[in-house]
């Protein structure tokens, strides 16, 4: 069956390439043709850039097109759009919303960001205080609040937003999910500088921002459930690629070790060997997770991937700074910059050390991940909840 799909797909790719030679076709035109051919994301439905095929066939299409020199849709520029907004819109949107948003999203014509976290709602996302109130006269929603840790907000055209529409019910039930235009009046984006000196993220202040009724996703009060679709998409997208031995942080440290015999100490040697083993164990575990996914039998081990990655990144970069001795006391650059993605390997050890601290906080803290493993994988009881049956407005804050 899968072989049938593959050969069918290969024929479609060949047809696309024959009709639109990448060497002579304009990039935008080629991408539009790829969309029309259902080769954008083959697991999406026909008519929406896909063919309704299994998700894992996409990699094959991408490989074939890349080999032929075809342009791609610059997915790194729209990670949240492709990884989070698109699957959520597909799952919970109306046909009109599918039509309006998915194509420009995939083509990279519209960039997306995510307005979830708030100063008072980090790990406890359901505590968001940003309010969305209907304007009876226009049918629009009027949004007020503050969001934080928003990557790409300064580049984005749209945002997926979770906001409170009913403060009188317990917190999970009073949320709704919106598609908010980032170019609308009342949206103010400020860079959020981090301990590295950079501002990868933003704070977003929303003041009487208007959202058309057609940009409510799902029903009023369904925001929590829909947000979980988004967050689960995020987890799926982590750790998908095969990794060679000594890739990433461990390779950096190993290179430093090899390059500086004069810096070696027995203490550092033991830590290096121990971390090398741990990094290799994590790599092997990742391989097995991918093999399980490939045969459609995902194991629960994947849930620990991020936890382990964060710890290793932190311990390895800490060791690297120490290996450098006095040179580790330097820093490459504190200048405020606004990188579009994290450049772990292009900068110095001190940067890696500081930036890696975020690995156990962003995208679910290590503490929350441990809760999730303990409860969902090991089946241990959840925390006693004091906020389940209390109206949001009555919760202590």
């Amino acid at each position, binding site marked *: 069956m899968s072989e049938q799909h593959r050969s069918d797909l290969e024929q479609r790719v060949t047809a696309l390439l024959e009709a639109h030679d990448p060497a002579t076709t304009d990039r935008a035109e080629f991408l539009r043709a790829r969309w029309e051919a259902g080769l954008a994301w083959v697991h999406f439905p026909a008519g929406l850039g896909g063919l309704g095929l299994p998700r894992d066939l996409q990699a094959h299409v991408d490989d074939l097109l890349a080999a032929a020199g075809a342009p791609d849709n610059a997915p790194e520029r729209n990670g949240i759009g492709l990884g989070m907004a698109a699957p959520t819109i597909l799952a919970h949107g109306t046909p009109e919303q599918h039509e309006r948003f998915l194509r420009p999203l995939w083509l990279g014509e519209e960039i997306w960001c995510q307005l979830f976290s708030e100063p008072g709602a980090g790990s406890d996302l359901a505590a968001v205080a940003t309010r969305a109130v209907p304007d009876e006269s226009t049918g629009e929603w009027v949004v007020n609040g503050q969001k934080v840790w928003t990557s790409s907000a300064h580049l984005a055209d749209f945002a997926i937003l979770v906001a409170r529409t009913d403060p009188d019910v317990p917190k999970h039930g009073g949320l709704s999910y919106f598609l908010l235009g980032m170019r609308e009046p009342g949206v103010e984006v400020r860079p959020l500088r981090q301990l590295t000196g950079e501002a990868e993220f933003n704070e977003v202040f929303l003041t009487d921002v208007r959202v058309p009724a057609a940009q409510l996703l799902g029903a009023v009060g369904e925001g929590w459930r829909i947000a979980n679709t988004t967050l689960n998409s995020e987890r799926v997208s982590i750790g998908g690629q095969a990794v060679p031995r000594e890739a990433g942080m461990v390779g950096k440290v190993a290179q430093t070790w090899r390059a500086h015999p004069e810096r*070696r100490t027995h203490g550092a040697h033991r830590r290096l*060997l121990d971390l090398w*083993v741990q990094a290799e164990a*994590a790599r092997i575990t990742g391989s097995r997770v991918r093999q399980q996914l490939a045969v459609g039998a995902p*194991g629960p*081990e994947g849930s620990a991937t991020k936890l382990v990655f964060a710890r290793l990144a932190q311990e390895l970069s800490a060791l690297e700074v120490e290996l450098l001795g006095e040179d580790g006391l330097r820093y490459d650059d504190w200048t405020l910059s606004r990188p579009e993605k994290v450049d772990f390997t292009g900068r110095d050890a001190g940067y890696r050390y500081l930036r890696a601290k975020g690995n156990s906080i962003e995208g679910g803290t290590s503490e929350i991940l441990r809760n999730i493993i303990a409860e969902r994988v090991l*089946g241990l009881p959840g925390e006693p909840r004091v906020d389940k049956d209390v109206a949001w407005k009555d919760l202590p804050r």
Partner: protein
Amino acid sequence: MTAQPIPAAPDLDLLPSDVETDLRRSVRAVLAKTCPTEALVALADGSDDVSGPAWSGLAHDLGLAALLVPEEHGGAGAGPREAAVVAEECGRACAPVPFLTSAVLATSLLVRLGAAESLARLAEGGTAALVVPAGTASAGSWARRTGVEVSGGRLAGEVRGVVGLPADLLLVPVHGPDGPALHLVPVDADGVAVSTHTSLDATRPVSDVRLDVEAGTPLATGDEVTAALDHALATAAGVLAAEQAGLAAWCLEQTVAHLSERRQFGRVVGGFQALKHRLADLYAEVGQASAVAAHAAAALAGESDVPVSVAVAQAFCSEVAVHAAEEAVQLHGGLGMTWESPVHLRLKRAKADHVLLGSPDAHRDALARLVDLAAPTPEAG
């Protein structure tokens, strides 16, 4: 400082085959029946009602004594992946059987040296033991320690800290006048004295072996012995990692089960967050241990990347098994401290396994050489 590239990682199949899954089920059933906790506990008091039935179940009922014996010698002709499955179950059950020492370590050595006659006897349920100190990780580490010498036509010497006894046949590597040689000595030969100690891990006791016997003709000599020892020790070390991974998984599962039942302060104890977080961390470790053990078995089966894969698996799984067992004792509270509890059996086995076939430190030292992470020069530090 030479830009010698580190060994690239092969792409190995880490998922169990259907055969392996069936094998696991069979072994688990046999061990569940033959290794009750009371009987395992009684071993330390010198009362053994368990090792016979357990080995009989594995060796005779399932034919696993001959798992690695080639078919032409009457065995199953299986490989390290299947052996790892059996070992993982032995680790879970804390089984007092010579599977690792005889059916894996000794058998691998005999297979490599083509000892047809001995293999046929093992295939029929006999047992063999390699007479080296339990912590031996390689031919090199064997050669660095004193042992049995051959001179005047006799093998003589003492080897302390040997595992795998009692066994029918002793595989004795010796330092001979022309380099290493491997002799086969029946355990009942004149001049063989085995004294078995009170052992920390009563499910795998430790012995001293004293020999003063007629040398006879060695099975093999020279580099062939060195290579075969390295092969057999690596195979056993990789399979031991699976035993450790199985033991660790049992500890995690039992602890989660216990804490899901026990109540204190009106709550299920497993619901206390500090314990949940420790168990989540342990879960991550145990999952990785299982993966690296599978990787080592696959590397051994494919004869690719063996040195690195085995060293990683031993360095990692030895530590995880001890950590899992220590957490299990602590999180069972007083109950885990009692003689009747199955938990401390795993603690003792994990701690002994930590020494077996090379400590994690020894395997990390091996890795330092294998992946070009050289130690500091003596002047430094």
